[in-house]
């Protein structure tokens, strides 16, 4: 794990000082929601006011923070000692649309009529692309919201759709710009794209060191770069420390582990049952058990070695993407608020927030 990089004030270096919109994506199962939550806490740890948002209606954030459900209203989750705060919201397309109509067009009544004739349903379900327009629009609104000339939120962290869908999701407003040559919706879409393309946005990708997620990460970075959206850092999640020495890993994969040595070790640990001298029958059974056990352990070591080798290759492939990387350990016991703080500290120490 990279060492903590501390500046002279004792706080770790911040790799993304100008970023206000942190978009966190990743292949399903890589833990992007957990990383988004940890990143929000880490940012709040620097004293910032952070809005953590999910947009897929999965209610994935609620269990992490031990609350029953996130409503479509920004609610307070945690405060930090340095005056930071994490607020959270689960953005729901229909509510976002009605709110959007009210804020931008002052259309409370017409909004109701649109709902009555089914236009709202149409916009949010039949034409799911519009759903993405609304969700990104809501992010834009929250990022730009001011009270008394000051931004309400210093930062936004978006638990975004998965890597396979992220470019389409973020780039949807570009489509709108293409469709609407003039008019208010074009202006709106154009402003959202400007924010997303600006240095105020960073799109972080979460991966684990397995083949498919690594491939999707590489593809995702290429897709984002193609449409000139700003790729942020790469978070390698669920990292497990190798349990064997480098030499033992190599031998295990090559099938050349010292079986006699393993047997001697197992005997020394008295894992063969009754020791020699307690009767020849029992001793023979004990020896046979040890042989079986040794073979099982050696075969498992070979699989472990193959996995570690695969992970090493994965790290090299990620390095070729030329983005800052951050590593988080596997948490076998599951994530709760305590582990989230721990993960947040690790991200902070590595300079992600």
């Amino acid at each position: 794990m990279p060492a903590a990089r501390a500046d002279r004030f004792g706080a770790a270096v911040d790799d993304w000082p100008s970023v206000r919109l942190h978009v966190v994506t990743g292949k399903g199962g890589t833990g992007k929601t957990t990383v988004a939550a940890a990143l929000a806490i880490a940012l709040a740890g620097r004293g910032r006011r952070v809005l953590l948002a999910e947009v897929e209606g999965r209610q994935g954030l609620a269990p992490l923070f031990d609350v029953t459900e996130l409503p479509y209203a920004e609610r307070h989750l945690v405060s930090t000692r340095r005056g930071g705060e994490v607020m959270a919201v689960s953005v729901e397309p229909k509510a976002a649309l009605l709110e959007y109509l009210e804020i931008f067009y002052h259309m409370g009544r017409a909004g109701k009529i649109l709902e009555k004739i089914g236009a709202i349903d149409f916009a949010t379900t039949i034409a799911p692309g519009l759903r993405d327009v609304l969700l990104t629009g809501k992010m834009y609104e929250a990022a730009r919201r001011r009270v008394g000339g000051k931004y309400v939120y210093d930062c936004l962290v978006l638990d975004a759709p998965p890597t396979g869908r992220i470019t389409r999701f973020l780039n949807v407003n570009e489509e709108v710009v293409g469709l609407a040559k003039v008019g208010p919706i074009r202006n709106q879409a154009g402003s959202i794209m400007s924010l997303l393309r600006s240095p105020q946005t960073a799109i972080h990708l979460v991966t684990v060191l397995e083949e498919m997620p690594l491939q999707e990460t590489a593809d995702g970075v290429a897709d984002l770069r193609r449409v000139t959206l700003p790729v942020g850092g790469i978070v390698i999640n669920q990292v497990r420390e190798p349990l064997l020495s480098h030499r033992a890993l190599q031998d295990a994969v090559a099938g050349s582990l010292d079986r006699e040595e393993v047997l001697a070790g197992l005997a020394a640990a008295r894992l063969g049952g009754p020791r020699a001298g307690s009767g020849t029958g029992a001793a023979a059974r004990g020896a046979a058990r040890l042989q079986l056990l040794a073979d099982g352990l050696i075969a498992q070591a070979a699989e472990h070695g193959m996995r570690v080798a695969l992970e090493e290759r994965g790290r090299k492939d990620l390095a070729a993407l030329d983005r800052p990387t951050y590593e988080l350990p596997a948490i076998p016991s599951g994530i709760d608020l305590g582990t989230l703080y721990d993960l947040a500290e690790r991200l902070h120490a590595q300079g992600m927030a």
Partner: protein
Amino acid sequence: MNAAASPRALDVDALIDDLETRVIVCCGAGGVGKTTTAAALALRAAERGRHVVVLTIDPARRLAQAMGLLELDNTPRTVADVDTSEGGRLEAMMLDMKRTFDEVIEAHASPEKAQQIFANPFYLALSSSFAGTQEYMAMEKLGQLRAQAEADPDGWDLIVVDTPPSRSALDFLDAPKRLGSFLDGRLIKILSVPARAGGRAYLRVVSAAIGTATGALTKILGAQVLTDVQSFVAAFDTVFGGFRERAEHTYHLLQEPGTAFVVVAAPEPDALREASYFVDRLGSQGMPLAGLVLNRVHTSLAEGLSAERALAAAEDLGESGGHALTAGLLRVHAHRMRRREREGALTARFTSAHPEVAVVSVPALAEDVHDLGGLREVSGSLAKAAVAYGV
């Protein structure tokens, strides 16, 4: 896993050998090996004598290559190197969402109307970029394949489909209802009014509410966009009816006894939560569920030694010095046993919530599947597990 929660075994061979099984739909959260499962089931069925076509949505590149799918062209292609000694065959295809959409339009609109639709900027966006279209088109393609299979007595007798990798993977179940409410709704009437009445005359004949709504739409979208939308809807009008009919047809096809849904999951909290959601959803829609395929299950090659004992032994060896290799191997073992226990507990939670669901587990492989050999290995475990499960 404790005995009380031991689920019924999903007998994969019985499912694919049953000639009454005509469609197998694999669904589940993203990243659980859905496509691999679909391909493995299809391969096994073909090698056991079925004439199979497998529709994949977005296969990993190397898996696609293994099946000879080099381009996304909506055409089923024969997969080479399949064992055909039992008289079966395997064809595979990747869904081309835009082309499938085009085909629907062509089938339902006059040539000029079709050209109008194809040229409309909204159609271009809807058919190629907007998320969600994939779900509709996957089901549309399934309907087409099924119709083709019925028409040709020498054609496929089993269709295996993968579903799009999203939470909305079951959105296709809602498609007919949504399209219906849209068609019967007033929005489409409002949007089609100007095109029908010509010019602005409609303002005089429609109600004030509709005037307000149209005004609102103009205000939000701008006049040019509204005109585009209106001409799109007007041109699309004839197609929508056919669209709904087809969606309803496919929906009913899915409820037939010849269809089997296979929910795919991995022994992880999120994936199993999604699996529960799918199981409930399928149940409430009357869709026939064959069972759950649990991928990437970790096993141990030395089951008799508990994690606790292995760790204690490793510690003893560490203290006495020497035997570092054995101590390391014992730690590797302890990790595996722990993982196995966690997965067992998660699975038990699922099966006690859904005791009626048959389950089959596929052991985790050291590397991902990217050739037919790998697929055979997966399908072998799918079938073998049915025999060994619960023993």
